[in-house]
């Protein structure tokens, strides 16, 4: 398949600065309130006069608001940079693209590592249990603040897909379409199990100290192991074979149980670098939010979708065993039952769950054409 791919960094959105939106008070699903909530976000492109060209990008577990362009300090590219920019899937010449971080996180938004205004100390485990719906609620407040009545789409992969489903079920009149990618209506026991092993690794680290480690040594080993497990689940046996095989590392030390194989070195590197950029308590809170998410919490999904004018594009990847295609097909099934306009594609990829960040050509083709249709229908409605 031929798709136009513009991937030169200088063609992107350039250097961007993260912005911060303050919510005075946010009431959570469990009726608890958080005061003075900060939500980090970035925007790319311009909002048109009628405010009909806004797209909300929703990130995965360890993602952040920096989806595109180069950040102001490190000059690092955003996590979905190849999808966002002039001429890319989310074409910033046409669309106003917003990427918002989530509450409970540690990338500029209020979470367990933030200071509790009531005590003056870090929240740690005093931070309330937040849900995917709470995260979506905070984002909705941001969209209200930006003066956007209806988003062209809410789109994301993995946890971002759950957020897109939350928008679809709870705020269908605020979106023209939803694009859930490599995601599920709810976690199955295998997904909960992997998350629980990650959480146990963190909590087993003596530095974790019941969550009170701020200002002291971090539970780095525990969080690194959690991330290593995560990375295994994001790949496929085929992608690991291609990437590492049984390749041995050069110059391994003559000690026992060093990282002898490339795959071990890779996982250790990924684990160690994650510790520098992510908070262990946020990992606990966010994985719990994903495990607790259920788009059928109140009623069957097809009932929630009944009669909606919202269009849905569902994308899954063949080798994704963490969020297998059959879970995406469950979303499609509900769409079929409800009679809403649906497009579904199971992309033939060997990258496993990581595919949603890597299969740029296929995603660009599907999303750019889908968005074009949705935008045209919105403009002519």
């Amino acid at each position, binding site marked *: *398949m031929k798709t136009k791919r513009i991937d030169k960094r200088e063609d992107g959105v350039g250097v961007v600065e993260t912005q911060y939106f303050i919510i005075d008070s946010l009431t959570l699903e469990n009726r608890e309130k958080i005061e003075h909530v900060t939500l980090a976000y970035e925007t790319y492109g311009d909002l048109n006069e009628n405010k009909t060209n806004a797209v909300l990008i929703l990130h995965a577990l360890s993602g952040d608001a920096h989806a595109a362009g180069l950040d102001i300090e490190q000059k690092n590219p955003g996590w979905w940079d190849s999808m966002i920019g002039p001429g890319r899937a989310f074409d910033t010449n046409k669309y106003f693209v917003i990427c918002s971080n989530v509450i409970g996180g540690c990338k500029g938004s209020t979470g367990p590592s933030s200071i509790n205004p009531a005590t003056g100390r870090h929240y740690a485990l005093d931070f309330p249990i937040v849900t995917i719906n709470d995260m979506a609620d905070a984002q909705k407040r941001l969209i209200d603040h930006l003066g956007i009545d209806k988003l062209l789409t809410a789109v994301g992969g993995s946890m971002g897909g759950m957020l897109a489903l939350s928008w679809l079920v709870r705020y269908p009149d605020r979106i023209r379409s939803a694009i859930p990618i490599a995601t599920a209506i709810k976690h199955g026991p295998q997904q909960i199990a992997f998350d629980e092993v990650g959480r146990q690794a963190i909590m087993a680290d003596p530095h974790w100290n019941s969550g009170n480690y701020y200002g002291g040594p971090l539970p780095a080993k525990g969080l690194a192991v959690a991330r290593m497990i995560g990375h295994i689940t994001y790949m496929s046996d085929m992608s690991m074979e291609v990437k590492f095989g049984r390749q041995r590392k050069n110059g391994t030390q003559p000690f026992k149980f060093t990282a002898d194989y490339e795959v071990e070195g890779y996982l250790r590197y990924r684990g160690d670098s994650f510790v520098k950029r992510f908070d262990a308590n946020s990992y606990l809170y966010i994985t719990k939010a994903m495990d607790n998410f259920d788009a059928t919490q109140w009623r069957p999904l097809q009932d929630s979708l009944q009669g909606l004018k919202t*269009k849905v594009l569902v994308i899954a990847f063949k080798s994704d065993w963490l969020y297998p295609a059959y879970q995406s*097909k469950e979303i*499609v*099934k509900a769409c*079929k*039952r409800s*009679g809403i*306009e*649906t*497009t*579904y*594609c*199971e*992309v*033939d990829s060997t990258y496993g769950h990581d595919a949603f960040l890597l299969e740029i050509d*296929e995603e660009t*083709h*599907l999303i750019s*054409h*889908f968005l*074009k*249709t949705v935008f*045209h229908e919105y403009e002519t409605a």
Partner: protein
Amino acid sequence: MTYVNVRFDHKAILKLVKPQSAVLELGCGTGDLLSLLIKERSVRGQGLEIDEQAIYACVAKGLNVIHGDIDSGLAEYEDKSFDYVILNQSLQQIKHPDSVLTDALRVGRKVIISFSNFAYYKSRLQIFFRGRTPVTGALPYQWYETPNLHFLSITDFINYCGLKKIRIERRMYISEDKRIKLLPNLFAQTGIFLADRGL
């Protein structure tokens, strides 16, 4: 009405579809028929297609299309979800045509079925005189590469409808861009039927 570069069978199917209706096409391929129906009849169209590359072509045309197989993909729709369910040259390629047709008549108020007639006289001649599995304009594949799992004639289909109490509302027979009136089971390459469950 004249259409440039529109397949003759597509034009015939177009005549059977009422404007503003809801259409599900099973095995919509690259979406040419569905696009035509949207353009000319303003239908609300939904496609179902097994081939990934065809999905990309449909999406490029702005169509709603679901990647999946017909045999299992139809059961998930509610009764009378669509005004028309269309099987254009796909009936021969599905594993269980009987159960798919039964389900299509449940999901659609009406069903449009178009298929290549195996009893077309040129096919008969090839079998009779040459002793070869027929390869014709409407059935262009060699036995070892055909996607068709089933071969049926116009008479087969009419008999099937009688047996299953399926009402045939309209029938059209075509061969090489011409309508065929006389002895269709012999002279038509393609049969197109508009059918429903009756009253």
